[in-house]
């Protein structure tokens, strides 16, 4: 990392989601690849600019739902069909229509548990500390401030150049260098 390993990245602050979008676009035009943005609301079109779209959450939810559904069905079939065969009103032991409601509920439960887990795991939460929290004014990111960060892992990263980029090419109102 060209000797910048002590630095996490350089952060520029913006006043609006429009300014953030412009800055991100401009950073991409300057061939910066390792970008991260921070905002008080999901900014439309930002993911496309940052070049990272899609999420693994749907795959998690599908897996969770399938596991939940299979568990639900086999729990009932095995329980009252095999483990302790139980005759209710002369119905077959694998009376599948009567197993549908619980199978359905457990499918939903599995999917929902997976959705929450995916949110934790994919976002790396819970996390007690992160370098961005040391940026002055970062507490406003949950109110009305927007930030764009160029990470030191970027192949073209140079703190001076990045700082100059933020000051001259974007409408940043403040620029901060972050240590790890």
């Amino acid at each position, binding site marked *: 990392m060209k000797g910048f390993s002590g630095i996490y990245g350089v952060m520029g602050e913006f006043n609006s989601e429009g300014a953030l979008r412009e800055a991100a676009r401009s950073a991409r035009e300057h061939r910066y690849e390792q970008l991260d943005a921070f905002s*008080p609301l999901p900014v439309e079109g930002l993911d496309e600019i940052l070049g*990272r779209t899609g999420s693994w959450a749907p795959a998690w939810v599908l897996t969770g739902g399938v596991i939940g559904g299979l568990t639900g069905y086999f729990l009932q079939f095995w329980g009252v069909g095999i483990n302790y065969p139980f005759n209710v009103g002369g119905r077959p032991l694998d009376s599948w229509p009567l197993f549908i409601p619980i199978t359905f509920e457990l499918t939903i439960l599995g999917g929902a548990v997976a*959705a929450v887990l995916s949110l*934790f795991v994919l976002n790396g939460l819970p996390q007690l500390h992160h370098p961005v929290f040391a940026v002055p004014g970062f507490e406003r990111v949950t109110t009305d401030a927007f930030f764009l960060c160029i990470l030191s892992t970027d192949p073209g990263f140079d703190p001076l150049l990045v700082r100059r980029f933020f000051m001259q090419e974007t409408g940043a*109102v*403040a620029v901060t260098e972050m240590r790890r």
Partner: protein
Amino acid sequence: MGRKPAGLALSTGHRMIPGTAQSKEETRARAERAEEPPRLVQGVATFRSITEQISGIVLNRRHPRSWWIGFGLAFLLTMGLFYAISVLLAVGVGIWGINIPVAWGFAITNFVWWIGIGHAGTLISAILLLLLQKWRNSINRLAEAMTLFAVACAGMFPLLHLGRPWAFFWLLPYPNGMELWPQFRSALVWDVFAVSTYLTVSIFFWYTGLVPDVATLRDRAKNRFTRLIFGFMALGWRGSAKHWRNYESAYLLMAGLSTPLVLSVHSVVSFDFATAIVPGWHSTIFPPYFVAGAVYSGFAMVLNIIIPLRKWYRLENVVTEQHLDHMAKVMLATGLLLAYGYIFEIFFAWYSGDPTEQYSVVNRATGPYAPLFWLLLLVNVVLPQSLWWRSVRTRPVLLFFAALSVNVGMWMERFVIVVVSLNRDYLPSSWRMFTPTGWDWLTLVGSLGLFFALVFLFVRFLPMVTMFEVRDLLAKEKGKSS
């Protein structure tokens, strides 16, 4: 830690976001274009002003006197509930008015009523999200909280009704010394799964929605202890683009999962009745009819809570008359579905050709509980027709009473379904009246107390309006106007 901003040293104090602070001319120009729908956030609003307004309710120490009075009353009633439960545990379900044949009495009436109330929260937060109804954004948090508390109240009743509530875990499949399984082919066991899944998923959905907002509270809290608590709850949320991307995806999927879930829950509750052969219960229209009634009473409860709260906390700019109007319309529509259900209950009884089935309808209208039935039709079907008038829908006081009428009416409907069907079935020699005792009433009123106490605590300690979604709404409205 003592790092300074390396570059420009611009002031980053208070400032408006360009474009959101609308000039007077712009506002007037919008007002002149009469075809434009009224805005969902009224007045001059910026991200900052909205965030300050809503987080201020939680972070501000002073609370309106009405909060203290309301919470105090609800807390007293909750104590009454705990007293009634203690006596129930000590003595048994004999303290209630239940008997054979009316073994379900108030407990199941209250269960069905409460769980129905919960349904509006999920409808608002999940179904309206999928239908892209933006007006849900400022009421969904409160409605979801209401769902949780209503389901908590609901879940309590069947457990207390077990007779031996401490053995409640026998309802769940677990490896046990008796080597037995629950009766998976029974609607009552389906209910256990449906309600517990509903509660779990509702908690997940609610908490997921809360994370970005508690992060806001963490960042705005002045006091170290408050910051610590909200910091833990926010899990380290920093609003990064990656966070939002996964968040939006997972949240949408949870809404997609909650939508069939909410429809299934009251359907399964209705199976408790419909799969039985009791005259007046054994009917295929029950699932949709129960779901419509659930949404109906749920919206009524949302209105009953939100109308006083928006006044006490001056939230009229985010919970506008337009919101009330929309909610009233949903209530009117589901009320009509319910009325359709009433008509078809009568039709099915006649069409079945079964004399007991037909008698159950006659018994409702002319039997010993007839006054309740006619009163139910008045408050649940006739009075809510006033919602056809816009002047009622947009006048908070009138709407409050219309919603109250629906809530009372829905409780009576549950009572009529449970008690009036059970008290006279096939064998006239076993007919018996049900008379609630004081303990029945104390448990019902106490559950209302518990519900409202939880609602009051919620509005005190957590943001009752979803701040980031209102910010999103502002951004979208701005984008539309420019």
